[in-house]
């Protein structure tokens, strides 16, 4: 079971509280996790990655196991701890303020 942490605004859109748990077939990658997330919650399509290009939106970041995975190619396998469900795949909005 893959655990995904969504940022506040996307939890509100998807109407979920806390972590999301997804069944994802191996290999577990950014793409396969996000595909499964968008199947479960269609309202999130276009909010994390572009509808057409499937590129990560500029101010969205992906963290896991204390690493920034945002710039990894989308088909790179996620860390074993994420695939095993021991660690979460974290989707978050980049810091901005003022």
């Amino acid at each position: 079971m893959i655990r995904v942490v969504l940022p506040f605004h996307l939890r509100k859109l998807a109407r979920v509280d806390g972590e999301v748990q997804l069944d994802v077939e191996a290999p577990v990658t950014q793409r396969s996790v996000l595909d499964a997330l968008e199947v479960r919650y269609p309202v999130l399509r276009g909010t994390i990655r572009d509808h057409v290009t499937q590129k990560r939106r500029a101010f969205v970041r992906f963290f896991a196991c204390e690493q920034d995975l945002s710039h990894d190619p989308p088909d790179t396998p996620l860390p074993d701890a994420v695939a095993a469900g021991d660690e979460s795949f974290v989707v978050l909005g980049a810091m901005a303020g003022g």
Partner: protein
Amino acid sequence: MSGVRLLVGTRKGAFVLTSDGKRENWDISGPHFAGWEIYHLKGSPVDPNRIYASQSSGWFGQMIQRSEDGGKTWEAVGNEFVYDGVPGTHQWYDGTQHPWEFKRVWHIEPSLTDPDIAYAGAEDAALFRTADGGKTWQELPGLRGAKGNLWQPGAGGMCLHTILLDPNVAGRIFVAISAAGAFRSDDAGQTWRPINRGLKSEQIPDPTAEVGHCVHRIAMHASRPGILFMQKHWDVMRSENAGDSWNEVSGNLPTDFGFPIDVHAHEPDTIYVVPIKSDSEHYPPEGKLRVYRSRTGGNEWEALTKGLPQSDCYVNVLRDAMAVDSLDKCGVYFGTTGGQVYASADAGDTWNPIVRDLPAVLSVEAQTLS
């Protein structure tokens, strides 16, 4: 019992303000979509409880929300806005050509006859249409064919911010774009032509160019849709012929820079603007917030000040942030970048703040409820 519902979009959410026909006491609900930019909300003329909202975020992009109960509850519908075909390029700040990139929806205009049909004005400038209540959106690409390669973004982005549907001429649509100008379609959006003859903009290399003008807003009265009013970057303009040509009607305004323009619900020659000092100083002249009303369709203007701050006021009123209701007397409303929403229940003679401390107001729409 009649009443009014105001739909207020702000930088940090949407608010719904409701009152009975007296328009003295208001209930305020919100923020809806807290933390998101709500550029615009508008209800269907056919089914006023169906309201569309444009929700956007620099992080998570565009969402269209729809309510079926007058703004009490909402459902996210479609958010896929894809330009038709290869969208090509437009002018960029440095004079080069730049590809069209979707950023957000500035304005939603529901159909006059079908609650499932609505139009969305986008940045980068394009017009989209839904026929299924907002679930899917298709571009009307003919608009970009109206010399789109010569359009350019203003400081606020290259946005299609005004959509007017002609109630008398089937298939006639007007739109306005910053900084491209005004455009008209007579075939339901398939083909378009610029309607900017008579505009003069010293901020572009050819002040009388066919396109490139920074039109801030256009307005019409439903009883005379061939007569259009325009607040341009500078200049207030009027057209007697559905935009074929324009004449300046700035008259005795203290400054003819501004953003919104609107028309009295029952008097088609009574119009309202909010003069702003300049394009370099986006606040009211002398720190006095004044709505100006013309009862002659322009040229002769009177300042409306009663109830509005007449000192130390440095807010702006954005292009979509003024609206009128259709009660008798006509109600006039506007919101400011300082978060105030002002209401006049007597066509502008006197004003009162409904609320003072909202986030910066991006848009105000008024629904008259029976």
